[in-house]
């Protein structure tokens, strides 16, 4: 879903899909679509012979729903925290969280 990020994490094989969050394989009830995505991902696995390969799966998400539909009903805790503590944004952007208390 975010092949740029997954690549930077060193995943050995990536099958990239351009789907919204929450519906990685496809819409609820779309068994044929889900099967096609899973099949393509597994065939990509079989085809890749070098570490770090990225296969861009050929599926087009065509609907126009608002992004918010695929997000959580309530803003996640980190989003709420950053609104209240905007000075912590650099730590979030640099992925350098403060030390844990526990």
């Amino acid at each position: 879903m975010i092949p740029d990020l997954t690549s930077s994490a060193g995943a050995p094989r990536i099958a990239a899909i351009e789907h919204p969050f929450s519906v990685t394989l496809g819409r609820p009830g779309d068994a044929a679509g889900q099967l096609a995505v899973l099949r393509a991902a597994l065939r990509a696995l079989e085809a890749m012979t070098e570490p770090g390969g990225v296969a861009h799966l050929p599926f087009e998400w065509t609907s126009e729903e608002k992004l918010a539909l695929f997000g959580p009903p309530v803003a996640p805790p980190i989003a709420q925290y950053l609104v209240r503590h905007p000075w912590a944004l650099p730590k979030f952007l640099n992925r350098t969280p403060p030390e844990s208390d526990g």
Partner: protein
Amino acid sequence: MIQVAKTVDSYRFLDGIAKRGIKRWAGLPAEAQIPWTPLAKPLSKCTVSLVSSAAIALKADSPFDPEIERRDPWFADPSYRVLPRTTRTGDIRVCHLHINPSFAEQDLNSILPAERLDELVELGEIGAAAPSNYSYMGYTLRPERLLRESLPGMVRQLREEHVDAVVLVPV
């Protein structure tokens, strides 16, 4: 479903701070070494398991604890759950605080395609679906406890069940 030749846009479904943050993270120094094990047999002979980062738990099991993340928003529940191959939509709850769980609660295959995996077995395209699939909470900015406490158990069970390949499904 429409199929086209494409290059996936990593940021199409992101906006605001999430987009900014993830773009920044993707540009941080990459992992120096990519782990690699060649596929030892054709896919049609492989046992395949699924791992989901959606914090899926059986209703009969303890849920992932959202209070851990609410107390410390940089961290989340580092545990994992085992989801038997026969797990279906009505058996689970989704505990991830960064997604809309309602899609998976209508059809688990949207994020953990266990039934689709069974269909690929029936079609002869994979050898077997593993007895167990797994889930953990994919959001955390302190992954050390997840890696130290949960990963060994998952790996041990994957080996015990002779799994040849894992599909790690993000959300």
